[in-house]
């Protein structure tokens, strides 16, 4: 009897246990953590771990494909005494600062120009966004050809307009090379600013402009005291985004100038690549990349907190 009754009890219990398991699974916290577990593990393995490992690498003398050994802050001290490193730091700040300013001002201009009524507006908007969506490497190759030392179409147009031959050496002159990468970064990023700010402009209630006009405000005053304050949150978010990714830019410079001439356009990312991959000094390269961290961490924290507040 006892033997036969056991399965009976088991089958009687089963639904209850199943119900309690599904009840447990239905708790919000259990469901949430189970759902998020896999993606969180993935991010921990491929973002969290490399970040920590990068810090360890930066403290090692570590040639490629060889075991490294701990050297403390030696790599960072080497960076400190490396004149190219300081050149790179200045380049990165100039590049980020000027390109961001140009994108912000130009993007605002683009948004204001687009914020009028005209035909084919959607088509124009779609076309204007093309520089932003086409793979950067491919459009940069086109710019490289446009600035070619011998057959630059930019120079041929300038010469046609009266500039003396042979025209500027865009990628051969240190200052002009910096100008070139800034212009191309602006060309690519400006539509992002423009279209985002345009969306912001379209949320400004027309009554505000009417009220300002009745109060006697001219075009500039309406812009300064109505448009700009209302756009401020969007401008801030877009700018922080843009600063983060301009500061850490790699593609454009790697393709166009490779950091040259005479390191005039090397940025943190391209220099870290050259040292880490090119020269095979993983530890030293990691230390260069990590010097970006304080500024980036500050920017990321600011943007994350700001987006959360929104």
């Amino acid at each position, binding site marked *: 009897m006892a033997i036969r009754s056991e399965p009976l009890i088991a089958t009687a219990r089963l639904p209850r246990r199943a119900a309690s398991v599904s009840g447990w699974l239905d708790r*919000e*916290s259990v*469901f*949430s953590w189970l*759902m998020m577990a896999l*993606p969180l593990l*993935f*991010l921990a393995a*491929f*973002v969290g771990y*490399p970040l920590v490992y*990068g810090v360890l690498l930066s403290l090692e003398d570590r040639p490629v*494909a060889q075991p490294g050994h701990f050297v403390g802050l030696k790599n960072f001290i080497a960076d400190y005494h490396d004149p190219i490193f300081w050149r790179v730091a200045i380049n990165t700040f100039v590049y980020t600062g000027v390109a961001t300013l140009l*994108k912000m001002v130009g993007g605002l201009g*683009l948004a*204001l120009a*687009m914020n009028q009524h*005209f035909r084919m507006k959607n088509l124009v908007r*779609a076309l*204007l966004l093309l*520089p932003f*969506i*086409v*793979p950067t*490497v*491919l*459009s940069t*190759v*086109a710019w490289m*050809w*446009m600035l*070619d030392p*011998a057959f630059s*179409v930019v120079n041929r147009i300038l010469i046609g307009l009266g500039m003396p031959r042979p025209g500027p050496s865009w990628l051969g002159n240190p200052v002009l090379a910096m100008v070139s990468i800034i212009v191309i970064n602006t060309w690519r*990023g400006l*539509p992002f600013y423009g279209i985002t700010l345009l*969306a912001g402009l379209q949320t400004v209630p027309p009554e505000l402009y009417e009220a300002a006009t009745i109060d006697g405000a001219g075009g500039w005053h309406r812009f300064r005291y109505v448009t700009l304050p209302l756009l401020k949150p969007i401008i801030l978010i*877009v700018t922080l*985004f*843009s600063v*983060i990714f301009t*500061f*850490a830019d*790699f593609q454009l410079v*790697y393709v166009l100038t490779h950091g040259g001439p005479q390191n005039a356009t090397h940025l*943190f*990312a391209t220099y*870290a*690549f050259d040292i*880490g*991959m090119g020269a095979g000094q993983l530890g030293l390269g*990691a230390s260069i*990349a*990590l010097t970006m*961290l304080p500024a*980036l961490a500050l920017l*990321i924290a600011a943007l*994350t907190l700001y*987006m*959360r507040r929104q």
Partner: protein
Amino acid sequence: MGPGMITGHGRIEGLVRVWLPVGFFLVVALFPFYWMAITSIKPNAELYNARLMPLLVRNPTLKHYVDLLTETSFLLWTWNTMLVAVVSTAISLVFGTMLAYPLARMRFAGAGLIAMTVAAIYLVPQPLLFLPLADVINRLDLGNTLTSVILTYPTMLVPFCAWLLLGYFKTVPKDLEEAARIDGASRLQTMRQIFLPLCTPGFISAGIFAFTLSQNEFLYALIFLTKSSVRTVPVGVIAELIRGDVFYWGQLMAGALLGSIPVALIYSFFVEHYVAGLTSGSVKG
């Protein structure tokens, strides 16, 4: 000029006010693409003749395209790029949803922290990660496999999709889900059968962005893929079409143009979704 004074003069002034600035922006934005296109169909004799007016083509030819497709591995690179973009986009949409749904709908301890962490990870730029990741990929023995980039692209795409979807999920009304819950559906059933089908526009937006970002990726592909047979288009074009000091500009421009077409095509179909995602304030610039 008052609103009642639409004269011929006013109309012209209006057109100038619109098209002078808009036209300027259009010319600047599109000229590089025009230059790509026209270079790719010029015979070499015209390309490297400094005496000809460069903005027009006299004897158009498809030679550069034929050479590109027959003499290089361009088609293979295109296939690799597509495969990687599609798979990593799919992974990222699934993982992104798995993160975004609980964050958008559930109350649990730590939700705020996870949301912040995901946003912060999204903002971590690649140059901070590529050297340690190169070593990780090496140790996993994944160098020169498409798996290496399929595994690493989602590091940027998952947080991005999660963030964009989180914003979208919050705009979907809760009524249907609550009704399903009252009818006894489990949380998983509610999510899969009731909620997710309502979110197609959000998935399209996130998917297009993820696809575009994968097509644009260069740094990981450059480091992990050094064999021609596994390269993606951007790396193949840079590593193999630029040969020493001799540039094959016709072929290069043909490659740049063809490589841009998949993204441009998808973008043109879903431009409204793209703009909607862009202006939700969660896209990299």
